[in-house]
């Protein structure tokens, strides 16, 4: 993907040809993960839910888990990114597994159009790094609605693109494998800030990828201005997805 091809949309009085990325409303070189489908699982009594799909690849997925009935208990709360779900490649399904100490699953999953087993490196387009958000001119911009939705809807969930909003982008997808040791997986990046990262791990002998959050009792995941470090003391296949931040960058 080159930077000399595609669509750029700039705000009023900004030259789209010369504007840095953070001032643009839209750039088709941005790799923005699309939500292919989402679902809710409510009180899944057997402790697991199998979600079938026909994508033919292992998709990036995220879960927000309602923690009713386990410790800690959040009544009507939703916690992001628990290390609970796992995904199954090729078989076109992934399995959501209840946390330890609970027989119930309760939450929402989203599946994105990102193949976690295929390397991807988006171009580094953003420079310089601004401190502030771009100025918002609500009288100017672009909106594109989802099928069957009104572009004038007050509910932004009805919109696929809204120039008053920004979406996280994929900076890179980094699949790999490692042996049964504590050697860290280190991935350098050129973003200049600690990016959001999603780590998926498939232990040797298993078929499912598990999502790893920030750190547990036997693994760690950290992000700095220059690199990502993941320590998993097991032989496994992995994929580290690094997000590019469309907002304040420093």
């Amino acid at each position, binding site marked *: 993907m080159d930077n000399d091809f595609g669509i750029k949309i700039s705000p009023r009085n900004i030259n789209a040809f010369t504007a840095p990325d953070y001032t643009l409303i839209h750039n088709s070189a941005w790799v*923005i993960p699309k939500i292919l489908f989402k679902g809710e699982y409510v009180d899944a009594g057997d402790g697991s839910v199998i979600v079938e799909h026909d994508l033919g690849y292992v998709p990036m997925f995220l879960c927000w888990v309602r923690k009713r009935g386990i410790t800690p208990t959040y009544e009507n709360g*939703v916690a992001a990114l628990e290390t609970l779900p796992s995904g199954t490649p090729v078989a076109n399904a992934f399995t959501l597994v209840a946390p330890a100490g609970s027989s119930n699953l309760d939450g929402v999953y989203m599946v994105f159009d990102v193949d976690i087993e295929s390397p991807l490196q988006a171009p580094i387009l953003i420079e310089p790094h601004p401190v502030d958000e771009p100025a918002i001119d609500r009288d100017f911009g672009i909106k*594109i609605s989802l099928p069957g939705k009104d572009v004038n809807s007050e509910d932004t969930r009805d919109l696929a693109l809204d120039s008053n909003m920004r979406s996280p982008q994929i900076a890179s997808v980094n699949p790999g494998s490692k042996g049964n040791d504590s050697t860290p997986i280190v991935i350098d990046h050129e973003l200049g800030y600690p990016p959001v990262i999603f780590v998926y791990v498939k232990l040797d002998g298993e078929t499912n990828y598990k999502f790893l*959050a920030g750190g547990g009792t036997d693994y760690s995941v950290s992000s700095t201005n220059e690199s990502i470090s993941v320590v998993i003391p097991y032989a496994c296949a992995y994929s580290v997805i690094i997000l590019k931040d469309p907002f304040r960058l420093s």
Partner: protein
Amino acid sequence: MGDYGFKDTIKNSDVYDTAVRNLATTSEYPVLKSQLGEDPPMVDFVQSEPFNVESATAGTFNLLTIPYSYSYLPANLCIASYSASTPASLNDTAGSYFMLPKVIFVDTEDQLDAYVDEATSSLKIDFIKRNGFFQTAYENFVLNVKYYIFDEDV
């Protein structure tokens, strides 16, 4: 999507016949997106007040609360770093950021959690201090968080 909408592709892909993954933008699928210009911001850096707790104390302690105006529970992400004068070992990772939730001190399994709370319409970040076999005190524990609140409901 039928015969209307908006699509543009990445380079060398045919916009009329291509996989969703080859589309740069499409009106067929939603994306996670955050509103600009909100007060409080839907994306921001924030820092907690210094937190202190004795070793024998267990419980859930709120460190940060960020209100939002959605009438539903919005998707959210948090990336954080921390420091403390006690236990000093927490500073071994100074400058590193972690996605939440995270077990911050392995021996005690004390944990940081981020979640949206329907009762208060806010994103909350809590310190969960357990009272198991291992215990430790925390002094001047400070959390730096970058949070994202999206418009998709969860």
